[in-house]
């Protein structure tokens, strides 16, 4: 074997190995795509206080959307939220807080929101219930989060059961519309954002941005 051929083979092997290592390490990071800005909003919380998107800046936020009376059979977003809350509770997320918001689609009366929050077991700190006037909800929920809902003449609401995960910069990172993901998928999304947020400086940040560049996104 000539010297030139040997060098060619070694160089090719090294390039393939470097590429494979890079691909493997980036794919392992499994970042979530940045889908767009989540809408800015000012809603009324169950406590009667105002809840704005700015209050939650810096936190990873899991949103869901439902009537105050809860979901219909077979699509219980409330139960999934409860499971996420329970399984996150023992984890240390003090550095990057995780919050949950249930946006109520059929009433913005604080007593009704408080009753719904109480039934769901929401504590008002990590998990809050909030709503707003119909026009504001249309702008925030339908136009902003891209979640379809429609109030009926009898006061009931037709809607898409959806979970949306937003990062600390206010960017939508996951939007689960078709079928209801279980708590496992939502926890995977939240933990993925937490890992990325904790690696927000130095060479680790470059690795995460490279993962975005090569679209190393997890599959369901």
């Amino acid at each position, binding site marked *: 074997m000539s*010297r*030139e051929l040997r*060098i*060619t083979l*070694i*160089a090719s092997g*090294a*390039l393939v190995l*470097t590429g494979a290592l890079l691909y493997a390490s980036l794919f392992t990071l499994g970042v979530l795509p*940045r889908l*767009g*800005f*989540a*809408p*800015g*909003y*000012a809603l009324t919380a169950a406590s009667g206080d*105002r809840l*704005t*998107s*700015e209050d939650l*800046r810096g936190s990873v936020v899991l949103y869901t959307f439902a009537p105050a009376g809860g979901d219909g059979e077979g699509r219980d977003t409330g139960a999934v939220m409860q499971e996420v809350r329970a399984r996150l509770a023992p984890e240390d997320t003090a550095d990057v807080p995780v919050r949950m918001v249930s946006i109520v689609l059929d009433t913005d009366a604080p007593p009704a929101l408080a009753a719904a929050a109480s039934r769901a077991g929401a504590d008002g700190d990590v998990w809050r219930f909030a709503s707003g006037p119909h026009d504001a909800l249309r*702008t*925030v929920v339908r*136009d*902003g989060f891209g979640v379809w809902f429609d109030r009926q003449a009898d006061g009931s609401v037709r809607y898409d059961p959806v979970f949306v995960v937003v990062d600390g*910069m*206010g*960017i939508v990172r996951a939007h689960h519309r078709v079928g209801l993901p279980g708590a496992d998928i939502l926890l995977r999304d939240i933990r993925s954002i937490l890992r990325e947020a904790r690696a*927000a*400086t*130095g*060479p680790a940040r*470059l690795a995460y*941005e490279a993962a*975005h*560049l090569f679209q190393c996104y997890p599959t369901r």
Partner: protein
Amino acid sequence: MTRLLGTALLASLLLPLAACDRYEPHGTLIEPMAVPDFTLVSADGEVRKSDFEGQLVVIFFGFTACPDVCPDTMGRLARAVRMLDPREAEQIQVLLVSVDPERDGPAEIDRYASRFDERFRGLTGSREQIATVASGYGIFFEETPLEGGGYTVDHSAYTIVLNRQGETVLIWRYGLDAEDLADDLRYLIRNA
């Protein structure tokens, strides 16, 4: 041939090391993220986001009667742009979008913006237009009554930078120094 392959091999091994010297931005730099186009009005008529493609666009949402955050941010942006050399500065377009369309007409908001730097432009529109644009950029704003009468507007205070293709590439939190803003702009001029 041998020399070429040797160089390629060396480059592949040095690439990760080169990354260690990369610029650390003061704002949050992200992979380009699409944001919706918009049509608003300035003193000179209709303005679209797409009118500025080819330039780096810095967008801040504020209002002319804002007592603190808006003049402070606009002042820092003006100082940052003045720190750039003229060829760099001409690649930057700062836009102030009003979150108080009832009081800020096209002439008022444009005059207010250009008071900080004559190249800055102020934009406004109907309340619905502003709400749609603000929502597309994740901006919250809400009128809040004042005790003595009248109102102020609470609003998000971050600044968004778009690349030459009109995609979001950088987000600045409120309060960064003009020097830091200028450093980030220089980096984007070279790389965005």
